């Protein structure tokens, strides 16, 4: 893995994916993004992130389904810490239910996101 820390961004909203990717890259992280859970699982086959930013409501495969699939992954991929990003009002409860390290509600502050990612990586 080396020194470069990796973040996987999963969100169906193109605008949010690009903002997060751009901001995180600017902070020095390596970023991959996926527009739903299924695409994210494809990314995980070849690329192991240190943190996952996960949206909840997505077409094809939503946050819940992705988390379930992630738990079944091997090679430590099931333990990659999650940061839940959700527009739902019950975001905190969703975060707990998913076993996420942090749960952030949309619209979020970029500083909150950076802080959450830092916290997860330095654990």
């Amino acid at each position, binding site marked *: 893995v080396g020194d470069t820390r990796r973040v996987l961004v999963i969100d*169906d*909203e*193109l*605008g*949010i994916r*690009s*903002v*997060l990717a*751009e*901001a995180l890259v*600017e902070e020095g992280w390596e970023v991959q993004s996926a*527009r*739903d859970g299924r695409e994210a699982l494809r990314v995980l086959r070849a690329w192991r992130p240190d943190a996952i930013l996960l949206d909840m*409501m997505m*077409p*094809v495969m939503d946050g819940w389904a992705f988390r379930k699939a992630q738990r079944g992954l091997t090679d430590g991929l099931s333990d990659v810490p999650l940061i839940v990003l959700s*527009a*739902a*009002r019950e975001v905190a409860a969703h975060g707990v239910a998913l076993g996420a390290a942090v749960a952030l*509600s*949309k*619209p*979020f*502050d*970029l*500083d909150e996101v950076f802080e959450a990612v830092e916290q997860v990586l330095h654990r």
Partner: protein
Amino acid sequence: VLLVQKCRLHSGCGGTVPRRESRAGILRMVPAGICLSRRVCWALPGFDRPGYGESIVFGRRMTGCDDMGNAAPPGYLGCLSALAGSSFASSREATDAVLRLLSDQLGMRSGFLTRITPQQNGNEVLAAYNAPGGCDVPAGALLPLSETYCSVISDSIDLAPVLIEATHTDPIFRIHPASMASPHIGSFIGVPVLLSDGSLYGTLCAVDPDPRTLTRHQSDLLVVLARLLATQIERDDQLAERRRVQEQLLLQVQLIEQVAAAVIVTDLEGRVTHWNQHAERLYGWSREEVLGGNIGQLTVGPAESEIATEIMERLRAGQSWEGEFLATRRDGFTFPAYVTDTLACDADGHPVGIVGVSVDITERERLLAGERTAREEAEEALRVRDEFLSIASHELRNPVSAAKGSAQLLLRSLRRGTPDPERMERGLGAIVTATDRLAVLIDDLLDVSRLRSGQFPMRKRPTDLAALVQEEAETGSASRGTHCLTIEGIAAPCIATVDPDRIRQVVVNLLDNAVKYSPGGGEVRVLLSCEPEGALLRVEDQGIGLPHGTEDRIFEPFGRAANATGSNLPGMGLGLYISRRIAEAHGGSLRAESAGEGRGTTMTLRLPLQVHHDEGGPPDGHRGESEGRLGG
């Protein structure tokens, strides 16, 4: 010549009796069993009933009392038997006759029948006869028992008769409280009135202001009369009790007949013995038809025979059964009934029959079902609203997040002093896109909200649909050169009475969708045809099509086909919902067809040319313009 003298008649007799008539004549003329004049009594053949006491012996023929003298024993016994055989209008009248006879025969001026209630120290005068110079105690008087000589009777162990020939000189009784209370009573004779169970009812007594000496016959007479009265009293009580029972029975029968429930009584084998009016109405069988018939065959349909067997088993086990039951009418129709079956038992507790009460609960079931449906509908409406709010909130937060994130990124780079123009443009462009989306979303949400609450005004007026379609096709997104656009059928005007703004909204939505969902380009074909039965607008594209079975899903709020969301094509899924409701508000329709995924989509809008008043416009639409509201 008959000498006719007006006689004083006793005890309900009335009329005249020949004074000197042969006995045979009198026998012929006097009604049976009547006691005649003051001293002359006649008894008639046939009054030979035994049973009035040991001292009374009846012959087949009784001789009368002599004309002048004291009543000879056979005479007053004859009188007695005459009295016993008389029919009086009431027992009160009989009692009065007895008291008068008593007074006459004993030569005492007052006679009383009293009722004793020892616990209350009461002695009530039930009936009184007071000859002139008598004691003048009226019927109805309530005397303290201890202050009457009757208490001597009730206090004695064997309830013996009491005779006091001279109260004021009698060594025992002159100090009796009654002698103090009633100084004007000179003599007293009283006997107990005993009921058949031996209990003391009261007394029959005679008093006189003067001392009297009584013969054995006279006191015997009193004993006999007391027994006579006791019999009368018991018979009265029995009659009253029987009348009370009969009245109660009648009331219960009326109740059972009039109660708003079918009351059916059967024997233990289920043969009907009673069938009330409501049962006739409820089951359609008349009482005459069902009496003796088997209840199972009359009211139980084949589907319920099992439960009917269960009911009978429960009843045989001595238990009752209560519950809902699908009862069958005479005409074969069934209805839900609430049934209570209980065992009817005789006085010894042995079951003799089954009482079934059934009530038709069709109406209650209907109300309950209606209530259930209404509750389910309300819950569903609430669920749909919650889901709608949840999705709307999500849809609003996403573009806000994108805009905010882009703005924060730009701020950061500005603060670092490295404003890269290309990056600035990208960020600001993202903000504009996000806010445009927000604006559209807010409009759509407002439309949906108005559609749902029924506050969606329609301002219909004659509109040229051909011009409207052409204008939108030529200036909208379909004209931007990415797609090959063909328009047909707009050469001639197509006038329809519609709300032009709303219909424009629909046309724009259809054209935008055609372009949006054919990202690979291709032909967008717009075809308008104007027929008398209505206008028809078809918009065909060669885009991603619709997965099989989603042709209706895309018209639901936030309903988008999986291939639309999967291809990351933007959209909230409200446009087609709104468009279809607008079409419907015009009395038209909007449908989608597709041969399948990747095989293009055809949207078909149908609109009537004329306003249909029952579609929402007022019946008297003014100058071709009408305003309607869309029901939610």
